[in-house]
């Protein structure tokens, strides 16, 4: 009887996402922060030699006198959008540029350009991490799509990203892992690497010799898509979760007919897909709970964009979370970095940079 019924009525599992609970309980912490200023599409915050660098499109900026009265000063300009950035201990910068590869600026290897690993062209550089002055770890998010086209990569259900170890002296590259679902953040911890695998909503832990670590999934089943990882002074890390998971998105991901037609026939701002900032136009898809009643947009409304920054302790366990909910104005947290007791946060969805003091480790929640 029940088998007959299930065949008749297609009893698929309901499309669900993990709840934001425990440490991840929602708050308005991000919306309460003071803004440094509005900058178009801020991204790639990196602390180097007492300075904070960040990108905005193809421009590289640094923040002058961080901590006091802060202003953004231009530093360099590249031929295309900057998709990843990291700084070595001595202050050399590795810059991932969309479509052209990786360029080293400053330091011993100034001017080095990495555009081919083995035979694979360096495309879709999503994260970079120096290990000393001569070694660089590189995440290539996808073998099919460029980094700005991450929505398409998700909706095509790609799993073609890879992780590389590159010696800057000999420009030799070694592939540490392949078939990753959009590796989008990387952190070097001694002889281990932690990689954020966005489309699988988890953090992977790998030995640098390339063999997968026994406890491979450090943090799994996150309620959003994890992105950049930045070292924190407490020995842990800042994890930027750049977009939320949603029931409708999860549902569309298993509806192949609709999804393929959507990718083919609609322009990307009209897709049912997570985004850095939803609600810019009334032609975007809207969900039931987001109908305004009495002019109020409910904080709990289903949303395709969200603001979430998580502080992990030295065991990579979340201890604090900072949110901007459906009705908030700090969505699309793509990057964060810590310098001298302050955290700098880039809300790319709302084109704003903001900052806050690092919370004491003993503190519960956020405040």
């Amino acid at each position, binding site marked *: 009887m029940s088998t007959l019924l299930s065949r008749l009525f297609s009893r*698929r599992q309901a499309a669900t996402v993990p709840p934001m609970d425990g440490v991840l309980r929602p708050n308005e912490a991000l919306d309460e922060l003071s803004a440094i200023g509005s900058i178009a599409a801020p991204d790639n915050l990196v602390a180097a030699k007492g300075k904070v660098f960040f990108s905005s499109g193809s421009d590289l900026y640094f923040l002058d006198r961080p901590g006091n009265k802060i202003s953004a000063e231009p530093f360099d300009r590249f031929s295309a959008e900057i998709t990843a950035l990291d700084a070595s201990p001595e202050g050399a910068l590795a810059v991932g540029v969309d479509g052209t590869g990786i360029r080293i600026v400053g330091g011993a290897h100034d001017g080095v350009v990495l555009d081919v690993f083995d035979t694979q062209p360096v495309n879709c550089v999503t994260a970079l991490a120096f290990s000393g002055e001569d070694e660089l770890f590189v995440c290539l998010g996808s073998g099919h799509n460029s980094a700005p086209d991450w929505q398409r990569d998700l909706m095509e259900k790609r799993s073609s990203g890879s992780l590389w170890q590159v010696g800057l002296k000999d420009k030799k590259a070694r592939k540490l892992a392949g078939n990753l679902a959009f590796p989008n953040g990387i952190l070097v911890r001694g002889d281990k690497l932690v990689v954020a695998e966005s489309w699988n909503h988890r953090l992977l832990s790998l030995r640098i010799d390339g063999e997968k670590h026994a406890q491979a999934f450090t943090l799994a089943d996150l309620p959003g898509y994890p992105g950049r990882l930045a070292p924190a002074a407490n020995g842990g890390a800042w994890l930027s979760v750049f977009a939320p998971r949603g029931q409708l998105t999860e549902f569309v991901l298993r509806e192949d007919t609709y999804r393929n037609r959507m990718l*083919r*026939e*609609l322009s990307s701002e009209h897709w049912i897909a997570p985004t850095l900032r939803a609600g810019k136009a009334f032609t975007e898809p809207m969900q*039931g709970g987001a109908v305004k009643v009495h002019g109020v947009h409910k904080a709990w409304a289903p949303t395709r964009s969200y603001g979430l920054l998580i502080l992990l302790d030295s065991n990579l366990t979340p201890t604090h979370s900072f949110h901007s909910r459906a009705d908030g104005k700090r969505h699309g947290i793509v990057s964060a970095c810590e310098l001298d007791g302050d955290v700098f946060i880039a809300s790319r969805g709302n084109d704003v940079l903001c900052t806050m003091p690092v919370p004491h480790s003993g503190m519960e929640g956020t405040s």
Partner: protein
Amino acid sequence: MNESAANAATEAGNVASADPKGSTGEALVRFRYKWIPTHIFGELLSKPWIDNIVPATILLLVVAYFGSTVPNFFLHGNVMDGTRQIGELGFVVIGMMFVVVGGGIDLSVGSNFALGNILALALTNVFGLPVPVVFVAVVATCSFIGLINGILVGYFKLRAFLTTLVMLIGLRALVDTILLKYALTISAGYYDDDFWYFIGDGSVLGMPTSLALFLVMAVAMHMVLSRTRLGWHIMAVGGSRRSAHNAGISLNRTVCISYVICGSFVGVSAFFYAARLGNGGSYPGVGLEVLALTAVIVGGISLGGGRGSVVKAVIGTMIVQIISLGVVQAGLLSGAGQLVLGLILLAAIGFNVRWVKNQDKVLSRVYMSPTYFDLPAAPSTAQEADSPYASNDRLGDVEVIGLDQVDGAEDIVFDSSDNLFCGDRRGNIMRFDAPDYDTGRVFAHIGGHPLGMAVDDKDRIVVCVGGMGLYRVDQSANVEKLTDETNRSLFAIIDDSRLRLTDDCDIAPDGRIFFSEATIRFDMSSWPSDALESRASGRIVCYDPKRDITRTVARGLTFPNGITLSFDGQSILFAESWACRISRYWIEGPKAGKIERVVENLPGYPDNINRASDGTYWLALMGMRSPALDLALRVPGFRKRMSQEISNDEWLYPNLNTGCIVRFTEDGQIIESLWDKSGENHPMITSMREHKGRLYIGGIFNNRIGSLKLKSGDPNWTGPASYWGKA
């Protein structure tokens, strides 16, 4: 972004030129949703009679089995004998059904039957009374036994099972005592009466007398149970005693009556049995209670009470009787018949429990049935576009009236003294006094959710109340129901006579009121389900106050919403929200009764339409289309699964957070549009009404009314003047 949009456009253009109607796959989908009406399954499943299907199938199987295995099963004599017994048993089963539906049980039917049988034989054979007197006496006696049961169970609140068990034993002892003394007298007597033979062995129209009378009684009892106050009371008491009590039904009396009915039917059955066999032995009626209960349960009547019908009782009777006879005729031992019946009983109980538990779950999964709906690409609303729909901020400086005093003013209307009236989610009609409209007060309370409104020639407000029907409020705030039902469609499966979602109305010069009902498939709170379905299940209804009749004048419309009378009074313009179009329905003249399209492919979902001062019309777009939803309309399976697999709040909706106001001419030319892109002052728009040079704006999810000074509006123009020539 512009570049990518342009690319997408060329890409879409390429696809279109290669295959203008889309792929063959889509053609199949279109065909499937046009010709295979799957929504009927859900509608069938929502009918109360649908659970008859299972016992009816069992009956057919039983007939087919015995018909093919037992020789001479369909022989005339055999059929007559079987159906005569079906008639007799049927009376008992109907009686038992009344008790069971009322939440009780009557085990004494067998003994009561035996008593009736012996009484009938005694009155005929010994006393030689006329047949009608015998009939009345037997039925009265058995009813009296039922009355005793009813008083004990209904008024003294004794347990039905034990009470009737005691009655079973006691009556059986009584019958045996009578037989011990008078068996010989009764058997020795002789009663020669043609009418008595006719009752026992005769036939009417080729049917045995008992069966003929049984069928007549079955129809009558069906009427009693499903159409009368008594029947409804019994159902209500059986379904939920507490609710029935709270609704003011007398439990004691209703339960008692159900036992009396049962007793009287047992009497009728005993009367026929006595006439047929003249059996003065002691076995008549032994085990009859088990047979009757089996028939009731196999027919699908719930032992828990509150669910059952005469049809089920009839089907159950036939199954039980055919099996009992068939097993004997198939040459099996008579005990085998009991065994087969027992097994069927077990299966029936098991199925009934599962059915009652799961029917609603299955219904909720299959009821929603999205259909294929193809809209052309929406016209551009981009700010820089050369289009009358180009978005702007002309509504940006809307003034706000009644902030936090109203809740969900879907429509607004003015009387001839300039006072403003609007509906309210709490079921009120609110009034804001001219000229400053600063304080609202509850003018009248109706209930439901008052939606579209119109003012008639006597300054009364005619209002469509969602969930209730069409109402009228006069200037002294007296509320009067005009209509809440219309004629039922001939082929509709669901009962579409009740009005569920009356939406907007307008009044013709002759006083007829035309109003829209958005959908007949869903209640007001389930409008998102109707939006997901995009099925043409709405209609336009006309109420004629002179003759006080209501008639549906147009069917098969996709969420008909706003209605307004054209300036010449010859036609009404109406909006079909999910179809994004405006149509005209001719009410007078040579084209009366015809529908014409006026505006098609709007960029949003149209709501109310109202007259403008310069001979054009205002139209509210309550929300805007999104390409993702437009695409989903062409993939019905996607929407169906979405409704099943994610929660309602996560569903893809029409975007109701941004709307606009559009003005169009009599022949459907769009002249201009008014937008509030930021949505700060007036978040959503479902209606607008021009009055003395200002435009007043309502929104069903808003806590305010908007007011905007029009640049080109006639400062003296009012709605009542335009309609009724009043100053």
